[in-house]
């Protein structure tokens, strides 16, 4: 019979209490009537099936009943229901949306098979402060042949090429890669084939692999594309394959992949570093082991080439970790903020449910008296909070989906992943878990209380005194939690806003207003000769300057903040040619570039049309260059070796934040565009056109397009944007982040104010009788006011203390994001704590005033 008792346990307790005894008796009689072990076994089997099936149905009956009951109860309290659903839904939505970005960017494996085995290799020149520099072809070759840790190793370099011949010329991004890249990544072509070793031979026909996006955009998804020749930088390339739509390497927006070919001469200069290197670890080889081996390999090379490879180590990083620490922290901070909003939302939901359960005490007591078991009541309250949570979850998913377009801006461009975090089952699962946790976690507390009180209510007429203290403590804890969470959020977003303001006040070194920029990349080998290029620049610049409203126009290799590196070693006059004199950024410019950008000329002169290959090589340097190499002296007339030639300083200009607002940049050296050797420094010849004008870009642009097309009809124009956009996009992730955090904080503050007001006014209404007694015994309204406000001040103080400590921890954790603003910034902390205390005061004032108005007689009589 004990076994049958176990079967009975499958049923809901209320059902068991009602019918369990009778069912036991029925079973006992059947058991007595059954003769023979076969009949007994059959009886047990039937009983088990009967119990399992009916227990499920009974539970379902109850659930249906409870859901119906909950829906009715909630529809009778629409204000409560709407508030609870919204409050929790906002939290769930914020947490889900920010978690799905976090998951997409930081957690989910990259879209390659066994992506956890993929690593990046870098040269590590820590002595000069460059931990991640590209490899030279010679070092790549030697690393590859000497290492044993990798299944495969491939090199690639960013590639930009002009596509012509099929409609308007277009500028395409992609990679020049050693053909084994595809094997290392373990990817295949969707159509045709990937690049093979045969494509990499110097004499082979030029081939190209194109992206799915390009195939659809330019070639109408024509399956006959294979074998067709397309013009890339004026050279015909045979299309050998189309990659799948989800192949984004090295970054989003890559459209073409061509084989990287090395001639014997490419291996000569170990200082010519431009290769990125990706490798796949052999099974069983840990990244630490690979690091150790690469350290040895690099040390061997340093011994073999003591001059070129001095201080050159090897850095092995997981491909997954190729993400700027700022981006990582941004997402973590954002998720933290969203979690804070969720916490406050849940706290509010909890207090709402709690207040409701206590408010319904009478109803529950009546139902208990009518025979509803404690378990049934608990079940009902739990169901109610689950129904609320499910609705909140639905609202949260809707909000998260709506927030999708906003959060995609937080996905860094430089990762081989999609722009949009997928709104998939995992996200829904996360939302569901959050929902259920909210419902059960905060439904259980009020439900258990209700259960206890219902039991008490049978014994005592007034159960208020005993349960009151516990619930008062719980409410106090909730108030403290809300204040704490708001302070952490306020401090975090306050610090980020201060950092943003500080950066926005930072002078980039040039004036971006009224400057339009665009890019025309002259294809090789047609423009190999410096003279041919110069003819193009002169023609475009002369015509552009003649346009109405245009005051200055110039060409430069790369705009600041667009290409951040492009540095070369500096060798001072009389020094040996090694890397010890440091580095400077190198740009070739045409005359008038400094004026176009508003970079002040501090001494000497601008580059001039007379600075040609035939005249002495000159340079214009930034002030920091002069300070560094000739401190306290005049830089003009000084000589140094840079970019394969001796140069004389003829001008000094203001410093520019080449590496972006937030980073220190190397000193800058500008060289005249006419002094680029023929076919030399191919990556450096001027390509970015900047125009300073008084007329809007929209009227200027058609004219400029006409001028460029007239100079070279095959040349695409790309990257058209005001210079202010370049500066803005440099701080864009930070702006979005600061805004998102500020929005979360505002939301949290509003939710917390609402929650605190609810909690305190509930406390006052619960204590109405006590207040009445006090007033009857002679307490003045002032005493009551002091009592209520004093209590909320105490709670706010507790929350402020706890919040302050936690916020300090959070601030130190996100120090990397603060751009030099102190994590313990006093003003921010004071403002945040002041705001939170003001919010608590505001929340409690209304209820305090209500408390003062309590009519002692009515309050005492109320029960």
């Amino acid at each position, binding site marked *: 019979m004990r076994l049958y008792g176990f079967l009975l346990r499958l049923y809901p307790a209320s*059902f068991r209490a009602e*019918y369990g005894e*009778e*069912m036991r008796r029925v079973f006992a009689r059947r058991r007595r009537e059954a003769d023979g072990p076969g009949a007994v076994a059959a009886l047990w089997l039937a009983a088990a099936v009967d119990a399992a099936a*009916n227990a499920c149905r009974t539970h379902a009956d109850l659930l249906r009943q409870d859901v119906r009951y909950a829906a009715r109860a909630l529809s009778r309290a629409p204000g409560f229901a709407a508030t609870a659903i919204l409050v929790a839904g906002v939290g769930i939505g914020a947490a889900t949306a920010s978690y799905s970005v976090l998951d997409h960017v930081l957690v989910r494996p990259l879209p390659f098979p066994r992506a956890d085995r993929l690593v990046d290799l870098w040269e590590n020149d820590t002595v000069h402060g460059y931990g991640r520099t590209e490899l030279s072809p010679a070092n790549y070759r030697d690393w590859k042949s000497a290492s044993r840790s990798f299944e495969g190793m491939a090199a690639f370099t960013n590639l930009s090429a002009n596509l012509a011949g099929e409609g308007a010329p277009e500028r395409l991004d992609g990679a020049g890669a050693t053909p084994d890249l595809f094997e290392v990544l373990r990817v295949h072509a969707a159509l045709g084939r990937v690049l093979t070793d045969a494509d990499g031979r110097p004499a082979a026909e030029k081939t190209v692999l194109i992206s799915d996006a390009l195939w659809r955009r330019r070639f109408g998804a024509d399956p006959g594309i294979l074998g067709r020749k397309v013009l890339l930088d004026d050279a015909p390339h045979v299309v050998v394959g189309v990659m799948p739509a989800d192949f984004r390497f090295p970054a989003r927006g890559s459209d073409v992949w061509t084989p990287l070919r090395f001639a014997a001469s490419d291996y000569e200069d170990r200082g010519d570093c431009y290769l990125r290197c990706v490798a796949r670890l052999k099974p069983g080889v840990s990244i630490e082991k690979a690091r150790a081996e690469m350290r040895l390999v690099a040390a061997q090379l340093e011994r073999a080439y003591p001059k070129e490879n001095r201080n050159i180590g090897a850095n092995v990083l997981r491909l997954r970790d190729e993400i700027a620490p700022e981006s990582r922290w941004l997402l973590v901070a954002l998720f933290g903020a969203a979690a804070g909003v969720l916490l406050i939302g849940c706290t509010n939901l909890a207090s709402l449910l709690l207040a409701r359960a206590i408010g319904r005490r009478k109803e529950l007591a009546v139902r208990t008296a009518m025979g509803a078991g404690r378990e049934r009541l608990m079940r009902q309250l739990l169901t109610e909070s689950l129904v609320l949570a499910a609705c909140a979850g639905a609202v949260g998913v809707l909000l998260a989906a709506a927030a999708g377009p906003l959060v995609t801006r937080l996905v860094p461009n430089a990762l081989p992943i999609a722009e949009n975090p997928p709104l998939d089952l995992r996200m829904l699962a996360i939302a569901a878990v959050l929902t259920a946790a909210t419902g059960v976690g905060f439904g259980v507390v009020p439900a258990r209380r209700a259960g206890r009180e219902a039991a008490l209510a049978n014994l005592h007429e007034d159960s208020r005194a005993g349960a009151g203290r516990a619930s008062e403590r719980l409410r106090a804890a909730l108030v403290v939690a809300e204040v704490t969470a708001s302070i952490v959020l306020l401090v975090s977003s306050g610090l980020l806003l201060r950092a943003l303001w500080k950066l926005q006040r930072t002078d980039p070194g040039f004036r971006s207003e009224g400057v339009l920029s665009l890019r025309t990349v002259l294809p090789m080998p047609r423009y190999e000769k410096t003279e041919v290029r110069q003819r193009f620049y002169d023609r475009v610049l002369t015509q552009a300057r003649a346009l109405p409203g245009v005051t200055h126009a110039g060409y430069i290799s790369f705009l600041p903040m667009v290409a951040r590196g492009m540095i070369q070693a500096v060798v001072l006059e009389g020094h040996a040619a090694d890397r010890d004199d440091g580095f400077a950024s190198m740009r070739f410019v045409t005359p008038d570039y400094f004026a176009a950008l508003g970079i002040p000329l501090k001494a000497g002169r601008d580059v001039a049309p007379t600075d040609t290959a035939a005249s002495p090589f000159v340079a214009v340097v930034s002030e920091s260059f002069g300070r560094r190499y000739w401190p306290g002296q005049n830089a003009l007339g000084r000589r140094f070796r840079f970019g394969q030639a001796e140069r004389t300083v003829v001008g000094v200009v203001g410093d520019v934040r080449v590496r972006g607002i937030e980073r220190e940049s190397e000193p800058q050296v500008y060289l005249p565009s006419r002094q680029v050797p023929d076919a030399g420094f191919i990556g450096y010849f001027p390509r970015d056109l900047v125009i300073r004008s008084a007329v809007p870009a929209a009227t200027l642009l058609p004219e400029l397009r006409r001028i460029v097309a007239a100079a070279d009809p095959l040349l695409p124009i790309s990257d058209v944007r005001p210079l202010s956009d370049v500066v803005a996009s440099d701080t864009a992730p930070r702006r979005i982040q600061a805004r998102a955090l500020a929005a979360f904080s505002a939301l949290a503050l509003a939710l917390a104010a609402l929650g605190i007001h609810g909690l305190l006014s509930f406390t006052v209404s619960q204590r109405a009788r006590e207040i009445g007694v006090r007033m009857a015994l002679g307490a003045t309204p002032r005493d009551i006011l002091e009592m209520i406000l004093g209590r909320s001040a105490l709670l706010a103080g507790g929350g402020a203390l706890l919040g302050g400590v936690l916020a300090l921890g959070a601030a130190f954790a996100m120090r990397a994001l603060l751009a030099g603003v102190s994590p313990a910034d006093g003003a921010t902390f004071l403002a945040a704590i002041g705001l939170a205390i003001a919010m608590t005061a505001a929340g409690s004032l209304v209820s305090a005033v209500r408390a003062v108005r309590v009519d002692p007689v009515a309050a005492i009589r109320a029960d």
Partner: protein
Amino acid sequence: MQDAELAAEDRIPLPPATFHILLSLFEEDRHGYAILQDVGRRTRGAVKLGAGTLYRSIQRMLEQGLIEETTERPVPEEDDERRRYYRITPRGTAVARAEARRLAGLVELARSSGLVPRRA
């Protein structure tokens, strides 16, 4: 009666167990085990309700007002005072009748289409 009949239409078709229990209680008030025995006897053992099915049906039928618990006890010596007795309500009778009519209608339909022979 009119209302009960009307409302009865809402309940049908009845789950077979419910119909059997109503039939059994239509004859006389019974306790749970007696219902099981009676249903078994009535159907010559073809329908053997499990205790779970029985009491879940009873719970629902009580809620729906098809049956009620009765405080009247039959002959005292037959009684075990822990037992609960159930009685069919007028509503229960109406619902059982409506179900019987529905079933008869179905059988009639089967006959007129020649699926089963007409009674001689």
